[in-house]
């Protein structure tokens, strides 16, 4: 076997051949540290421009070597997912495995080619280092082990959501998004690195990392419990939330953010409704407080406040002018985005904790605010933004010019209206997309073809609408014409609406960033149509306050003035929701919690007078 001929020739003289080595130079290593390889795992460097302080490095560190340090003066922006924290490394513990580099969501961390550090016992604190891009001793050694695409431990791609194809969805109001199945939800949840940026960015600070973790662990009921800690509009937000969380997500810095909204939706859909009611009711006060609260408006803000206050044992009555509760989530958002039965479920949960919702009660007509004030300890108005703004361009008072919210209202209520054959929508926000896509569906059903044009001042990249909405609208055959400033409606000799005239937009804001669009008249277009729909914003109808109250309340540029907790200048009256905070479901929910806490606190110090 062995090819070494030792058995016979083993000789005392053999090693003498090695004397030849005296003629060769010896192996010599220089005393100074040798240059490390290009891939060396030396001391850390951290690009502070890229680092967002997410602390994922700390979580993967198997030696507990990383401490997060807050550094005043660095940028902080919860909305963008940026913290003023940076990792500090304990080189008494670090083993230079480089897992922190491979998992770093932003790619800011790397290891350098520097590897020598030593000190006396008195200088032991020099082992604790806050790495930046300048290197351990301020000398450049060059990058060693750094992030590569094939070694990235962050999963940048999101689980794809199954959706109805454009041709399947255009002729009906069926929900487009199918929702994740168990396996998809598990995989999507497993991408989360638990940095908590989403929690910080969320207006109502949902415990997103925790419920995502619970979904990953298969504890869906626990996920629902965590969701209900901060949001009783869970079904609604699982479908139509503006998801600031996903904008802040660390994984989104280089890849697709975790589909936090779809995970919430998954958890809510996966647990039986009756069980959700039990989970939501947990922690409800066992004894009634004897306090009474009236809430005007059964939208997300009003009902969230109602939910909180009812759980604290107060008697809560919600007055709603329309036939069904839900506010804009029901009357503004089309069914293909948010099926009505999901709103019904959220509201059923809220009712089940003891909230009394009375619909078709118009304040100011059926009952006055003054009466509510006299019979309750506190009153909250959460009226929403139901009135559509008008462009007031020439001929916009024509009977075939509508406000988007009015039409959306009619569609939800099932009220008949004359469906345009050819509609032009003014506006580039989500409401414009909602009405355009709703009309397109009805046109397809009734006329067999879609003819809707959306015109907006902005260019398409800067539309206020969610990019998904724009993409889906285009797929559904809606035409988008951007950079179009409406100049007037075209009326025929017989008085019929025949089109909308627009000019090309040169700029929207002036040098002081004030709204002052400039147009190029040469870029005039007539968009032929039989109906024009204005979707350029909404405002609150506060007429129900009555003249006297309107007079005595303090206002701020047309909006009701409130303190940080949502209380108006009248000590018995609070305001919340879109009417004070602008249109957004999850912000309204956050408002609801805030005023509920304020009302609860105020009532607990109030003398029981009524």
């Amino acid at each position: 076997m062995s090819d070494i001929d030792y058995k016979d020739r083993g000789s005392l003289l053999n090693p003498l051949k090695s004397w030849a080595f005296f003629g060769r130079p010896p192996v010599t290593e220089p005393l100074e540290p040798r240059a490390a390889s290009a891939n060396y795992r030396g001391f850390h460097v951290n690009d502070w421009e890229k680092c967002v302080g997410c602390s994922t490095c700390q979580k993967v560190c198997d030696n507990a070597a990383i401490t997060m340090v807050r550094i005043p003066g660095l940028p902080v922006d919860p909305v963008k997912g940026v913290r003023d924290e940076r990792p500090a490394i304990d080189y008494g513990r670090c083993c230079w495995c480089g897992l922190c580099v491979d998992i770093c969501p932003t790619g800011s961390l790397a290891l350098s080619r520097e590897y020598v550090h030593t000190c006396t016992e008195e200088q032991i604190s020099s082992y604790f280092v806050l790495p930046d891009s300048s290197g351990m001793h301020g000398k450049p050694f060059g990058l060693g082990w750094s992030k590569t695409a094939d070694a990235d431990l962050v999963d940048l791609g999101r689980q794809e959501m199954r959706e109805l194809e454009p041709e399947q969805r255009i002729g009906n109001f069926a929900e487009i998004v199918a929702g994740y199945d168990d396996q998809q939800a598990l995989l999507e949840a497993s991408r989360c690195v638990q940095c908590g940026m989403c929690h910080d960015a969320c207006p109502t600070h949902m415990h997103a990392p925790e419920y995502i973790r619970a979904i990953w662990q298969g504890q869906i009921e626990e996920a629902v419990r965590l969701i209900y800690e901060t949001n009783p509009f869970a079904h609604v937000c699982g479908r139509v939330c503006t998801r600031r969380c996903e904008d802040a997500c660390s994984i989104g810095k280089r890849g697709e953010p975790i589909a936090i909204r779809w995970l919430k939706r998954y958890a809510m859909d996966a647990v039986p409704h009756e069980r959700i009611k039990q989970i939501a009711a947990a922690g409800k006060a066992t004894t009634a407080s004897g306090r009474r609260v009236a809430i005007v408006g059964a939208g997300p803000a009003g009902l969230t406040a109602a939910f909180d206050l009812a759980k604290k044992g107060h008697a809560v009555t919600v007055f709603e002018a329309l036939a069904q509760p839900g506010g804009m989530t029901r009357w503004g958002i089309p069914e293909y985005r948010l099926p009505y039965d999901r709103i019904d479920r959220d509201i059923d949960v809220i009712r089940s904790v003891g909230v009394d919702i009375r619909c078709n009660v118009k304040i100011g007509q059926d009952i006055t605010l003054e009466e509510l004030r006299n019979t309750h300890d506190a009153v909250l108005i959460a009226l929403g933004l139901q009135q559509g703004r008008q462009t007031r361009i020439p001929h916009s008072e024509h009977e075939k010019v509508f406000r988007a919210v009015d039409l959306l209202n009619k569609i939800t209520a099932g009220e008949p209206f004359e469906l345009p054959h050819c509609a032009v929508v003014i506006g580039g926000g989500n409401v414009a997309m909602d009405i355009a896509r709703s009309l397109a569906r009805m046109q397809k059903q009734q006329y067999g073809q879609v003819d809707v044009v959306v015109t907006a001042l902005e260019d398409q990249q800067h539309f206020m609408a969610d990019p998904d909405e724009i993409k889906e609208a285009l797929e559904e055959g809606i035409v988008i014409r951007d950079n179009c400033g409406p100049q007037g409606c075209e009326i025929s000799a017989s008085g019929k609406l025949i089109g909308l005239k627009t000019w090309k937009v040169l700029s929207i804001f002036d040098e002081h960033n004030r709204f002052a669009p400039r147009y190029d008249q040469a870029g005039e277009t007539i968009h032929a149509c039989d109906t024009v729909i204005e979707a350029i914003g909404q405002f609150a109808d506060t007429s129900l306050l009555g003249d006297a109250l309107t007079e005595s309340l303090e206002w701020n540029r047309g909006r009701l003035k409130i303190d940080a907790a949502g209380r108006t200048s009248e000590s018995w009256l609070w305001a919340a929701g879109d009417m004070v905070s602008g249109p957004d479901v999850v912000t309204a929910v956050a408002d609801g919690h805030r005023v509920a806490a304020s009302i609860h606190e105020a009532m607990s110090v109030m003398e029981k007078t009524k």
Partner: protein
Amino acid sequence: MRPENYQSVSQPPSNEFELFYGPNHPGIEGNYALKVRVHGDEVTSARADGGYLHRGFEKLMEGRLWIQNIALVPRICVPDPVPMEVCYSLAVEELGGIEVPLRAQWIRVMQLELSRIAAHLFFFGGHAATTGMYTPMFWGITDRDLILDLFEELSGGRVYHIYNIPGGVRRDLPPGYLERVSKTLDYLESRLPDYDNLLFTNKVFVHRATGIGAMTQEQALEWGVTGPNLRATGLAFDVRRDDPYLVYDQLDFDIPVEAAGDAWARSLVRRSELKESLRILRQVVAKLPHIGGAIRAPIPNPLAWNLPAGDVYTRVESSKGELAYYVVSNGGDKPYRVHVRGPSAMHAVQVLEHLATGARIEDVAQIMFSLDACPPEVDR
């Protein structure tokens, strides 16, 4: 045992001495002790005494995520760390049903064989040193350093490479890497005659090692001997060939055996294995450029990775023998149990006790080293 805890025992008068051989002595690659009773210069009994390198790896692994353990396992055997990384990764991959890309499998074979050469070079030096010859040790360590250079370039670390990860390897080969591997192989091949002259055909060494610590094949099997030590008793068994993993079944290599079962035979088997490893590496270097594709299968986010419940026993042939990991998952994100079966657990305890008994005191160090035992594999 710490000196302050030692209590002298009064013994009846005798001409026997109890000698604490270690924990620091030339016969072993780490801290490990042998308590020998000597009568004159003859050892009448020997008891292995471990624990000086116990760091509780198996317990530590139960508290760390599946991925985090890759930073831990190479520390279980410093002279030959790659089999530890690969064996652990193989276990996790089998539990998770992960198919390792072919390119990663070939890269792993390359590392395993480089590591084997490095470990054997270390071994020769040590074995020679126990017979009083120090030049082979200097040569072995110097040439081993060339392999550490290759590892540094590949993985960013010279000794603890932490380069294998469940799913594959952590980085692709640097540009021009295989050429440099080739050059090092050329150099090492050219060194083999030098080693033979210096050591393997050196009459002093041949005579000094022949007949020392001899065991028969029957004894070797009875005591659980594996690896080169077993092959030195004439049994041609190698996990790489007989329980193949990675792509070893696509490689052409022989399994050197010797019949004598003594220290000399054990050294010679390893010397022959050097050549076989070089032969395997030549094949890998020729093959790797033609194997493209990923270097790692997609694995989930390490912070949220549950492996299906189950257990698996993976084995690889390390430079010391049969290395095995028994890994149990209870469906969680960390191992439920990891049992490391290092070959030295046999060689450094009962085999050593058997072989040292009856030997002369000056041969004990050589017997220990010729078994190429790695104490941290015993202590874990």
